[in-house]
């Protein structure tokens, strides 16, 4: 059984995480949005997603950058599953070859 300090930390961490999930929703509930605000919110998905993966673009390993380029090319024309497979295989092979 986990001890009290562990459970307390997990509980506090989990409640904070849940708050971040609902606060943005609650803040906008029953509000009318200005066109500018709507335009900004439309950009949220892309800006968040690209920020999360930004470290991949500045990797110091050549194998990773080549792998990223191949994955990007795949992403422009294939669906999720083949892109994931190509990304993993290409990056794994390149790291093996370059010794990354």
């Amino acid at each position: 059984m986990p001890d009290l300090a562990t459970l307390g930390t997990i509980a506090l961490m989990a409640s904070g995480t849940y708050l971040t999930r609902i606060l943005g929703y609650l803040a906008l509930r029953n509000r009318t949005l200005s066109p500018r605000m709507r335009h900004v919110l439309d950009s949220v998905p892309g800006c968040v997603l690209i920020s999360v993966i930004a470290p991949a673009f500045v990797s110091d390993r050549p194998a990773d950058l080549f792998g990223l380029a191949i994955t990007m090319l795949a992403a422009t024309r294939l669906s999720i599953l083949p892109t994931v497979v190509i990304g993993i295989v290409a990056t794994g092979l390149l790291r093996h070859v370059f010794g990354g």
Partner: protein
Amino acid sequence: MEATHPTTVSDCDPAQRATTRELCRGLWASVPVLLGFIPFALVLGAQATQKGMSAVAVPVMTGLNFGGGSEFTAIRLWSSPPHLLLIASMSLLVNSRHLLMGAALEPYLRHVPQGRALASLFFMCDESWAMALADAKRRASINLSMAYFMGVSIGLYLTWVVFTAMGAMLGPLIGDLERYGFDMAFTAVFLVLLRGMWRGRVACRPWFVSLVVAALTYCLMPTGAWYVAAGALAGLCSAALMAPKEGK
């Protein structure tokens, strides 16, 4: 209750059938993404037990919290006894992007009763959020398909909790999965989702601002998750500045 009746609900109720179909569609769509979850989940569980967390505590954490970035951060900072406030505040910081994500999702949830929306938001992670939004955009609808969202979420949630627990139990047997390129799975998923949201170079200028600022922040401050906050906020500021004039 239904089991006592001779006919099952799915046989006669078209609304119920549509919900089930959407649920399965979501579950199916989650498969390629959950494959990417597995190596991360195993690594997280293995790292957690190396840091002295018990094998039972790991699924408790991942099941109650369900936010990979914050969990990796918590494990990195884990000690015995844990620094309660440090870990809680770092989780808040890492997950602060959820504030923006929830706000962006709100217009798509207006058809959902508040209680149900709050309950399902527990499952909002980068992937389930992006996939459900991308799906609504593809259908050119302002209503999120809640059953699709829940289908995606169930697939991802179960995978995450089960495989972090397995990682905790298998711990020392797991080598360095990153060597095999599994970390590229997330980048690949996000790139495909981004392609689905692409609306041309002009409309997506804020993305490039985000990318550049996030990458620079990451180079300067590789620890923590500052780069996500900095990149997202910079992109949104540029979106506000480039917004079409009011009334248009």
